[in-house]
């Protein structure tokens, strides 16, 4: 489904050149639940952004369903993100002026679905994630775990083929983190949605079908000591 070939990313911090990814070859299978682990600054979030088309590589390719998407225009990438990908970010990235259900159905509205269709789907998703009674609450009225589950529902609303989650449990307590990871696993098992998530929490990798490690921008199948 998703493949990278010789992916490189270099950041320029003034005159300093910082290599974030170095010649990364990765293949993500359909229906996989992949965990990318690594220490802070290892390049795991950068890799996730490349895979999710929200950043462009300095060199190399990202192939999504055999199409090189790394050089597409922002408009085309935006359409792919909207219709075929879902995102869950580290810090409950909900729009504060929208209610939970509005946050969930916003991408569906953007995709041009009928209100009756997307409102029902958003409500069903929230219900499945145990948030039915929180549907009309604003983000500030929800706990961190609840917000993150709303973000997962939002990521699912357009029935994407793949969901990217960037340290989804990073700011949550253990119980809330478990709820979030359970929700992601449920999506993977229930709908066959491919999940790629980044974490540095050893507990999280237990949810993955496969774990890969990033060390200083280089990929490894093995965990370093």
């Amino acid at each position: 489904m998703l493949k990278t070939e010789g992916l490189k990313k270099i950041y320029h911090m003034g005159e300093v050149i910082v290599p974030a990814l170095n010649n990364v070859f990765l293949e993500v299978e359909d229906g996989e639940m992949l965990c990318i682990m690594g220490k802070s600054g290892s390049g795991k979030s950068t890799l996730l952004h490349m895979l999710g088309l929200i950043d462009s590589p300095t060199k190399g390719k990202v192939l999504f369903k055999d199409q090189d998407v790394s050089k597409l225009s922002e408009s085309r990438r935006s359409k792919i993100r909207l219709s075929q990908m879902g995102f869950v970010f580290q810090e409950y990235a909900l729009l504060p002026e929208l209610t939970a259900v509005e946050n969930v159905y916003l991408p569906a509205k953007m995709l041009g679905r009928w209100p009756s269709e997307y409102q029902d789907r958003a409500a069903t998703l929230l219900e499945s994630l145990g948030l039915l009674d929180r549907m009309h609450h604003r983000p500030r009225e929800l706990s961190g775990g609840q917000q993150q589950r709303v973000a997962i529902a939002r990521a699912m609303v357009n029935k994407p083929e793949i969901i990217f989650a960037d340290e989804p449990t990073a700011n949550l307590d253990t119980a809330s983190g478990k709820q979030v990871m359970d929700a992601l696993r449920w999506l993977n098992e229930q709908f066959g949605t491919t999940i790629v998530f980044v974490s540095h929490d050893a507990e999280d990798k237990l949810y993955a079908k496969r774990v890969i490690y990033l060390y200083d921008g280089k990929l490894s199948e093995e965990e370093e000591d």
Partner: protein
Amino acid sequence: MRTLQVALFIASRSIFRGNFWLGVMTILMMVLVYLNLLFAPSLLQGVIFQMNSKLRDTLVGDITVESSTPGELISNSSKLVDQITTIEGVDAVTQSRTLSAQLQLASERGTAEVSGIDVESFKDVYSIPKYMIEGSFLTPGDKDQIVLGAQIAGAGKAKLELYSDSLKNAHAGDVVTVKFANGVTKNYTVKGIYQTEFVQADLKTLITASEFTQVMPSSVDKASAINVKLKPGANQDKVNQQILALNSNIKTRTWQERAGFVQSYTESIQVINKILRAVALVVGFLTIFIITYVDVVNKKRQIGIERAIGISPPTIILAYELRALFYTFVGAVIGAVLFITVVVPLEARYPFHFPLGNVYLDVNTGFMIRNVLILLLVSVASATLPAWRAVYGKIVEAIWG
């Protein structure tokens, strides 16, 4: 359509669920910007209106008819006046004869043009009799009586623009000596003094037509000028053509053609007007720009998230534009209501006094609507710039904040 729907959705939620006081302050700023956009131009437009009104009501009427031969009088003027009176759209017609003269009161001298007027028709065309500050206006049978404009009488008003060239201290009841250009010298009692506050009109000196005939016997049934006042809404060009068709020995000039000396004032005022409007628009532009800019900076991460989940940049920009349009429109509507119900009546009650008299705000619906539209356009432009910059940056940088 989808872009508009989503943008409307985001904008409406941002307006009604965002920071309440920020919204109120933004609208208040737009109210002030709109009032600023209306007030000074309306006042200056009022000055122009007053200037033109005074020119027509006290000096030239709407159309002036003169002999086509320079220096000659119009012959058979009474018949011509009657003919002009019958033209559709003509409200009133008056004729006058004029002769230069030197006026003297004690040791003070001044020069003026003395006009012999048909008193009743003069009152129909001009509003000068309403501006008497001393004594009274002429009546048709008056003999040896003269009415002086304040600028020639002086009337003890040292602040008058042309006081130094006036008789300085002439008052109603005083006797002035008038030496006409044809050599006739005669004493007149000052029956009244008027002050229209329009300098050129206040330089006039008036006597009755019969009195003028005694000074200049050859002026019987002749006129230096015939002045025509039109009914409101009359077609000036059409009336003008009809007058010209009556007599081949006359020429006509409209009040606009005779407005040369006020034209330069008018043009200067219009330039000032444009500058003030431009400044008001810049203030409006900067207000919305700063509000949007600060908002965009504060919501940089949110914009990044919106983009990451697939909300297109044009949708996000449109949401900011719609929000700016809303604030501007509400501000302009409140501003318009305040202007009509508070500012205009208040200014009418306590008008600004200019050298040519009280000036009232001159505003019409078209002008107000035009300014709303201009302000809306400016607000869209000012919201677009910062939103554009934020939306077309790198998503990752936006998310990182």
